[in-house]
């Protein structure tokens, strides 16, 4: 009590998760429930000439079959996008309709053409096989850069050259001049490959229309239930928002893929209205691969210029960002405002220009995936720096240290204004890199590496430093940048008459441990036991409003809203205490769970004040009964966590297989409430970042078929692929939120990927390898080691 902040309290939610007692959407069974199966196009691009559902409708146990035409005829809208990024010339973003089920054309494999609703999911699936669709297959395009070439197949007729928007940020002229006058320019063309999120729980949704009171309930696997309610009611189905309840119960992982409003959510809700019965849909794993919004997928050319001392003088990046077949909820923001704005990194680069073209292709929609834009920015910067160090024959760590922004605390010294719109809150970058170098034993490693090379062994070390913009975000700022929503958070703290506390948070927890971390904050501030605090989230009926969980924002924004309500409780409690203790309000102080008259032993405990507030027999005049406060918190800036990651690898010369031998990370995420949970977030993030570097990658063939659509074909990182991570922290508090926290959910993913790739390239120095596209599979690494004649590989 009073000392819970900073303690590694065991996660209270784990008891139910580990013992199989979680309550997930697919666990929910409602009376008279029906089951939907969605027939998908399974072709990347095809015209629908005809669809015959008669046999499916006649199948025993089938309740209804709806097609894209039925949806279109009902007059509902498509799935909206939540962010607008226009063309540089002022033209409006191309935002083609995204119907719940398509009627005319399929534009990627996952497009639904019909839904069969039946008494069981087995019957629904069997009946779906009886639907006959007459398709006319069309040419497809899957690569973003190729899609913008003249003559490429068009995803939407209204988007010429498949462009949704193009966008530039920074000073193009100054950057061109800086690069032209640079002593050395390092250039890298690369692909930041497409990833499939693979949350352990497949998406699921239950629509439940209750005719007796004309109300809708949607149970869904969402990181963002309130936003889903807003988008679905107001923009898709046109039903009054106050008639809609959205419940997002336990959710088994999201990594961003469950932020967005998906077609299936609106579809089951619409179907339930037609049938007046609940309709459940749960994705099969193959559907998860095909329809959960994917991540990354950038094709980039980047140039970084240096002066003779190794100081960065300019950076230019041209990126084609694959958006998939439709604009997912936050898709336009990810390659622009979450990527381009991060290209200052930790460095003093005086001239930066970034150009991003958002491109439609015949693939699964792409949106935020853990890190969202920031891993792409960090990869771009950190690969360039390592390649530059290689080319200029300087030490990669020294090159970074030379270019770091000097320390600033954001209190006495102002924040750091970047060349790409952001103002960093507080930062002290050298200590994290120095600490990581100390942990890995950098000098000793270089000696070990030299010895190993003499023995023919290929050891390598790779660096990465990163900064991320988290705690998103000030509503006015993101509004000016094209967001169609605010990005505040709400929290209600209700002290019950017995002194127990219920907290209603707009932040949704789907693995992050809010029920523990938030409870620690509340119990600590009130000086009460942790078990006296209950965190309620994920139900639009219980929680006033919420903007959801993503962008490492829960504690920085949601936690700050909780603190605001806590402060209001303590303030009102003081009035009640002053009355009970017959003291002046100015003489009352709150500490260790009680209000005390300063300088005396006269005090009243938290629980007694709570009871008094609800049994106000002896009560101060003019004070309302009850002890229950709501707050909305809108941050004044993003938060900017940072850190340094170092990977040590050994490459098998014969096979090209990479062994990750050590991984060292020193992160600065501001103040820490629960070190164990933060370590866990960093560990999980690193594992996912290593996954991108070495294993993962969506593969489409030329016709747009997803070849990596199962766990037999898409490589997830596993425990035995990873070493024990060595992690440490520095603390530079956030100056602008009450907890001084910055966020830790994405740091591991953002920092780790380039460190691993850099380490492999370092290991391959004897072969003069400059770059290998991710994932660094054994074959790709082996090929990079093969002798080349006239640019072609020679095989024995």
């Amino acid at each position, binding site marked *: 009590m009073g000392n819970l902040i900073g303690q590694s309290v065991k996660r209270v939610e784990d008891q139910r998760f580990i013992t199989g007692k979680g309550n997930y959407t697919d666990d929910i069974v409602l009376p008279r429930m029906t089951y939907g199966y969605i027939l998908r196009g399974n072709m990347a691009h095809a015209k629908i000439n005809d669809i015959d559902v008669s046999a499916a409708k006649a199948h025993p146990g089938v309740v209804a079959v709806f097609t894209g035409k039925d949806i279109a005829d009902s007059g509902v809208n498509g799935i909206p996008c939540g962010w607008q990024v226009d063309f540089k010339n002022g033209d409006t973003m191309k935002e083609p309709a995204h119907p719940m089920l398509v009627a005319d054309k399929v534009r990627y494999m996952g497009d639904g053409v019909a839904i069969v609703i039946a008494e069981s999911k*087995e019957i629904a699936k069997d009946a779906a096989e009886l639907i006959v669709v007459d398709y006319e297959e069309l040419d497809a395009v899957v690569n973003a850069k190729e899609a913008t070439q003249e003559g490429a197949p068009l995803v939407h007729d209204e988007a010429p050259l498949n462009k949704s928007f193009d966008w530039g940020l920074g000073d193009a002229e100054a950057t061109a001049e800086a690069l032209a006058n640079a002593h050395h320019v390092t250039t890298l063309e690369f692909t930041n490959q497409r990833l499939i999120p693979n949350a352990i729980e497949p998406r699921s949704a239950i629509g439940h229309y209750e005719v007796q009171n004309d109300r809708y309930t949607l149970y869904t696997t969402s990181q963002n239930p309130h936003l889903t309610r807003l988008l679905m009611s107001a923009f898709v189905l046109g039903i009054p928002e106050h008639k809609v309840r959205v419940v997002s119960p336990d959710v088994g992982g999201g990594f961003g893929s469950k932020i967005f409003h998906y077609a299936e959510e609106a579809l089951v809700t619409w179907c339930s209205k037609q049938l007046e019965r609940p309709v459940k849909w749960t994705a*099969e794993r193959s559907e998860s691969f095909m329809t959960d919004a994917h991540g990354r997928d950038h094709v980039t050319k980047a140039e970084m210029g240096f002066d003779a001392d190794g100081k960065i003088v300019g950076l230019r990046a041209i990126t084609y960002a694959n958006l998939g077949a439709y604009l997912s909820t936050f898709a336009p923001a990810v390659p622009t405002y979450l990527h381009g704005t991060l290209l200052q990194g930790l460095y003093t680069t005086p001239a930066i220009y970034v150009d991003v073209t958002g491109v439609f292709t015949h693939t699964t929609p792409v949106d935020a995936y853990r890190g969202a834009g920031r891993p792409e920015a960090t990869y771009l910067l950190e690969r360039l720096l390592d390649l530059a160090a290689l080319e200029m024959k300087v030490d990669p760590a020294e090159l970074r240290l030379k270019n770091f922004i000097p320390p600033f605390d954001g209190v006495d010294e102002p924040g750091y204004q970047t060349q790409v719109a952001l103002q960093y809150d507080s930062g002290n970058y050298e200590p994290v890199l120095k600490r990581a170098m100390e942990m890995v034993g950098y000098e000793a490693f270089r000696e070990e590496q030299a010895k190993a090379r003499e023995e023919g062994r290929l050891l390598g070390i790779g660096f990465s430093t990163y900064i991320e913009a988290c705690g998103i975000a000030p509503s006015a700022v993101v509004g000016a940048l094209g967001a169609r929503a605010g990005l505040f958070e709400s929290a209600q703290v209700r002290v019950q008459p017995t002194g127990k506390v219920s907290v209603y948070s707009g932040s949704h927890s789907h693995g992050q441990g809010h029920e523990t971390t938030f409870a620690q904050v509340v119990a600590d501030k009130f000086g009460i036991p942790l078990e006296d605090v209950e965190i309620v989230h994920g139900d639009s009926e219980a929680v006033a409003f919420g903007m959801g969980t993503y962008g490492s924002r829960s504690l920085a924004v949601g936690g700050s809203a909780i603190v605001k309500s806590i402060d209001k409780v303590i303030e009102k409690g003081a009035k009640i205490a002053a009355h009970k203790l017959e003291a002046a309000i100015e003489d009352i102080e709150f500490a260790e769970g009680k209000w005390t008259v300063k300088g005396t032993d006269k005090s009243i405990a938290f629980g007694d004040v709570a009871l008094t507030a609800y049994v106000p027999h002896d009560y101060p005049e003019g004070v309302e009964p009850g002890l229950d406060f709501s707050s909305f918190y809108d941050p004044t800036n993003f938060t900017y966590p940072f850190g340094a990651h170092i990977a040590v690898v050994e490459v098998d010369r*014969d*096979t090209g297989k990479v062994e990750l031998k050590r991984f060292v990370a020193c992160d600065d995420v501001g103040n820490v409430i629960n070190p164990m949970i933060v370590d866990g977030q960093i560990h999980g993030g690193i594992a996912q970042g290593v996954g991108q570097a070495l294993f993962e990658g969506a593969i489409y063939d030329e016709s747009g078929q997803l070849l990596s659509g199962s*766990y*037999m074909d898409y490589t997830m990182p596993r425990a035995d692929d990873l070493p024990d991570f060595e992690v440490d922290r520095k603390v530079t508090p956030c100056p602008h939120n009450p907890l001084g926290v910055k966020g830790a959910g994405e740091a591991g993913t953002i920092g780790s990927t380039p460190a691993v790739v850099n380490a492999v390239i370092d290991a391959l120095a004897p072969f003069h390898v400059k770059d290998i596209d991710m994932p660094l599979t*054994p*074959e790709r690494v*082996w090929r990079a080691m093969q002798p080349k004649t006239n640019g072609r590989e020679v095989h024995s």
Partner: protein
Amino acid sequence: MIPNAFEYQRASSVEDALNLLHENGDEAKLLAGGHSLLPAMRLRLNEPEKLIDISRIPELRYIEERDGFITIGAATTHDDIEHSDLIKSHLPMMTEAAGLIGDQQVRNKGTIGGSIAHADPAADWPASLLAAEAEITVKSVNGSRTISAANFFHGLYMTDLAENELITEIRLPIPAAGTRSTYVKFMQPASRFAIVGCAAIVSGNGTADKVRVAFTGVSAKPYRATGIENALQGNAVNADSIASAVTSATDGIDPLSDHFASEDYRRHLAKVFAGRALNAIA
């Protein structure tokens, strides 16, 4: 992930299973550990009308020494094989291969008979069975026959088994004293099946009396690398002779190619892994 509707019947004995197979013809599939069949059914790649469960027939689950052979009942699990002292003492490559199949849950349920009947080109067992010159006993209502491992595997998911036949036993000749064997594997990182699996047997000191080298994963059909065997058999087996011999690892073979390993890379890996296996037991 939802299979078609199917009937299910548990066989109480080999005779019962054979009768059921005979009665149901090509509409029925045998279910042992289910680790190949059930995933295929869930994806509706395989849609049998009836499953005959042979996983609880005690007479199909044993590891015994008999008449100069190690005999393994077809429904013996990978885990049983991994932990058999009899097998480890004579053919440690079988122990090693078993331990490299899937994960512990797979090894607890999956069976050697089920695996070879499925004939996945990337499965682990075929390399060891070819190298060990195993015999496979199959039965039907018409009687039984014995097939050499070399004749059993026909190609991609294809074997010598007739529709009404059931594998009952795998027989491994016990090698001469002092014979060494090993199994090495380069895993496909997602499925952890073999991109290249190489089983090798060497007997004799200094000069090799007998050398057997067999591959799985490299091509649609598992095969013995007779070029390597012939180069080493009767000669000294050392790092130099091995390096020279393994150059023929994929002679006459048409390797598979996929997004994890191209044909070129598979050819290269076959040499590397043959070298590693032989050097380990030279």
